[in-house]
C-alpha cells in the first residue's frame, strides 16, 4: 500500500492507502475524495483529473507523455507541476505522495 495525501483546493486534506497498480486518480475516486472528476475513467481523454504534484515528488512520478502534455495544455490553471492523475501509476515508491487539486476540473 502507498499512503497518498490529496489536498482539496480549500485546503481539506485526505490521506488514504492506495493499492499499488491503481492510478493516483483511482485512489481518489475509489475513496470518494472530491476534486477529481475523472469523467473518462482514466482514458487520458478528458483532462478532468488534473492535479499539482508536490515538488518533492516530481521526479518519482515521472514525466507526462506527449498525449498527456497536449491534453494538459488546454486545462485551466496549468502549472509546471501539473499532471493528469490517471496517468500516474501508484507503486510502493509513491508511499507518502502529496497532490493538490485545482479549483475546478471543468
Amino acid at each position, binding site marked *: 500500500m502507498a499512503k497518498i495525501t490529496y489536498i482539496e483546493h480549500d485546503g481539506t486534506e485526505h490521506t488514504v492507502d492506495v493499492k499499488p497498480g*491503481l492510478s493516483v486518480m483511482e485512489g481518489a*475516486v475509489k475513496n470518494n475524495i472530491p476534486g477529481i472528476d475523472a469523467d473518462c475513467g482514466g*482514458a487520458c481523454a478528458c483532462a478532468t483529473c488534473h492535479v499539482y504534484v508536490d515538488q518533492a515528488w516530481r521526479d518519482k512520478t515521472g514525466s507526462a507523455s506527449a*498525449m498527456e502534455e497536449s491534453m494538459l495544455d*488546454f486545462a485551466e490553471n496549468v502549472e509546471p507541476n501539473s499532471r493528469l492523475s490517471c496517468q500516474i501509476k501508484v507503486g510502493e515508491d509513491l508511499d507518502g505522495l502529496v497532490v493538490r487539486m485545482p479549483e475546478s476540473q471543468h
Partner: protein
Amino acid sequence: MSEQRVVIVGAGHAGGSAAAFLRQYGFAGPIVLIGEEPIPPYQRPPLSKAWLKGEADADSLALKPLEFYAEHGMDLRLNAVAVSINRGEQVVTLADGQTVPYDVLILATGARARKLPIPGADLAGVLELRTAADAEALKAAIGPGKRLAVIGGGYVGLEAAASGRALGAEVVVVEREPRVLARVACETLSTFFQDYHRDRGVVFELDAGVEAFEGEGGRIVGVRLSDGRLIACDAALVGVGATPNDELAKDAGLECAGGVVVDEDARTADPHIFAIGDVAHRPLPLYDRMFRLESVPNALEQAKQAAAAIAGRPAPAPETPWFWSDQYDLKLQIAGIPFEADQVIVRGDPAEARFAVFHLKGDRLLAVEAVNAPPEFMAGKMLIAQRKAVAPEKLRDMSVSMKNVAA
C-alpha cells in the same frame, strides 16, 4: 427538502453517479438504488477496450467500492428489477413483489443491445456487449487463432475488433452500410478507420446484409450473408446499436420519444420523476433540439442536473456533448454533433494518423472529430460551447496553433 426519499431505478453509470452527486451536493435523505445486475455500478467503456485486452482488472471497472454505498447511507439493492411505477401512490414495484415508496424517482435504466431478428440468433456463441457478463463471454471467445465475426461497424464493434486482433483472433466485420461508423462519424473518419483496421488484419464485408447465423449442435459455425456466402467463425458479436429501456416510463404514462422526454433539469413532465443517461431524450441547449445520447459524459451531466435539482443547488452549466474511443494506438475524441453542418474542414493528414475533422455551419463550429489530436479536440470543444465565430482558413492551417485559433 432533504428528508425526501430518493429512489433510483438502474444502478449503472448514470444511476450510480447520481447517488454520489446527491451526497456530494449535501442531500442527506434516504437513497435507494435499484439495479438488475449482480454487481455495483461500473464503467462500460473498458469492456470493449482495456478490460477486454486484459489491461484492466474488474476492480478498476467499479465506479465506487461496494462499502461506499453503505458508508454513505445508500440502500443498494442488486439483482432487483423494477417492473412498474404507480405515479399516483408514488411507489415502484419490484419483480419479487416488493414495493418501494418514493418522493423523488430517478429513472436511469440505460439501454440494451439491439438484437437481430434472424434465424440462429439464439445459438451459443452469438454474443452481444453491454454488460460485464457479456464481456466475460466475449473474452472467453477470443484468443489466438479464434475467428470472430463482428456484426455492425459502430464504435463497440470496431473496438472489439481491435481488441480481438490484439489478442490474436481473426476478425471479420460485417456492415450493412457502405462504410463503417456510418451513423456516427463523417466519411473521412470512416475511411481512415477502415484502412487502419485493414492494415492490422481485419477483413471488412461492407454493404452486406446478414441472413442467418448457422450452427451445429447448438453452436454457431458461421454467419450467412444475404449474397449467400458463409463467413465461418467461432463466435459472432452483434453490435448493431442499442434501444432505450423506457418501457417502465411508457407504461406509467410518461412521454417517450425514443427515450424518456425530460427538460434541462432532467425532469419529466411528472415533477417527482427524473430520467437520466442513455434512457433520456433530452434538450441540447447548444443545438436547440431534443436528442438521446449514449455516452458517459452525457450520463454524468444529467446525473449532475438531477442531483442539483433535487438537492436545491444551482443547475450545472450546459456541456458540449463529447465522446471518445480507443482502437489500437488511436485515440479518437469527438466533441459536438454536426447537425446541419454546411462545411467540413480537415486539419492535418490522415496518412499520419494525426488529424481532425471540423464541421461548421457558417462560421460557427458544430463538431470536431479528432484522431490523436488532443489540442484540436480540447480547443474545438471550447469553441463549440462558446458559439464564437471561427475563421475556417485558420482551422485548416497547421501553422496556426489551436491556442491561436481559439483565442
